[in-house]
């Protein structure tokens, strides 16, 4: 039986790369934490096209560009917005609580 999801501390907001994407590891999971213009969001860090690490890509506050082929994703929704990316990013529900980014996992 699967256990209920719980809010788990991920990283302090003060430790985020301001206005950018920060790589964080949670157990065996590689995650990308985006400091977007509309708040903090979190996704799995690997590009759905060729599995490059998106944390090393160019982030403009809304969209994350893959460092390998420049595919583009909306970092707020995970939606793939430009080729060769086609499959949406897997997002993880996130919130900020007492200066800490938490994920529901």
């Amino acid at each position, binding site marked *: 039986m699967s256990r209920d999801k719980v809010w788990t501390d991920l990283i302090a907001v003060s430790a985020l*790369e301001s206005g950018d994407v920060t790589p964080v590891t949670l157990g065996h999971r590689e995650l990308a934490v985006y400091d977007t213009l509309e708040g903090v969001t979190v996704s799995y860090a690997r590009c759905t096209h*060729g599995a490059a690490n998106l944390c*090393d890509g*160019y982030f403009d506050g809304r969209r994350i560009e893959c*460092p*390998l*082929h*420049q595919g583009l994703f909306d970092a707020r929704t995970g939606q793939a917005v430009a*080729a*060769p990316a086609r499959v949406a990013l897997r997002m993880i529900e996130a919130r900020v609580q007492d200066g800490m980014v938490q994920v529901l996992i």
Partner: protein
Amino acid sequence: MTEPVLTPITQALNDGVLTRAELKALMRRSDRPALIHLALWLMLLGATGTLVWASLGTLWVWPAMFVHGIVVVHFFSIQHECVHYTVFRTRWLNDLVGYICGLVIILPNRFFRYEHCDHHTYTQLTGEDPEQIPMPKTLGEYLWYISSVPYWRAKFQELGRHAAGRLTEVERGFIPKEEHHTIFLEARLMLAFYASILLACVVFDWWAPLWFWLIPLFLGEPVMRFIRMTEHVGRPAIRDMKENTRSNMVSAPMRFLCWNMNYHAEHHYASSVPYHALPRLHDKLKGYVHVEEEGYLGAHREILRHLFGGGSEGRRA
């Protein structure tokens, strides 16, 4: 889910040759440098075009078209940067300019984008890199490649195949099914475009496109083939990016003409870094990537050394 890959830039970060903050600063985008560069570059194109115009009706028109052609074939450099979205900050401007450049040099932009993605994933891996230029085995093969005949033959076959609605197995590997129709449409539109140009030439007895564009393009292409060979040919056909790609130190006018494409190893390391920041990335990666200090000629000397038996083990495609 695909296995995670270690991209060259992640490798470089892990190796500590540059920090994340430095990488992020280098990746910053701006429209300004490219708009200025493009305006000056088009003025250069206008200047060499004027040479052609001034020499029309004389034998000088041939050397003039060759010089103009050297500039024309460098539309490829702009297009190459555009498919990486590293020219302009505004993403659609890269698409627009990339498509225009592709029209000029007969290289459909969408197709090139997909093909080029695999070139970056499988750089210099024989049988996997769709853009690999094979290491010539004889001087004849070397000269034949530079002549551009095999290049144009392959490009025209490719265009015809796509216009006919067909793809090779390899192409199916890097173009997703949903995009096949776009690739076919793009090839058909390109053929229609060229057919209209030729029709206009005949109907209006207006031959300017030949003198100012198409003949220079074909005359200049060997120079582009010569340059493109310097990126990987003669380097080992292995996965290690420190070895399989060559940067060439060339003069400032050449860097201007080729939009810093000579910093090829740096570009492969971090293909999201805009062209104008590549010299700064070069400073960071000094000693980490393979650099040919003697430029394009030095690279060809290396290729010819391998060709004539100076240790070509593992370098042949």
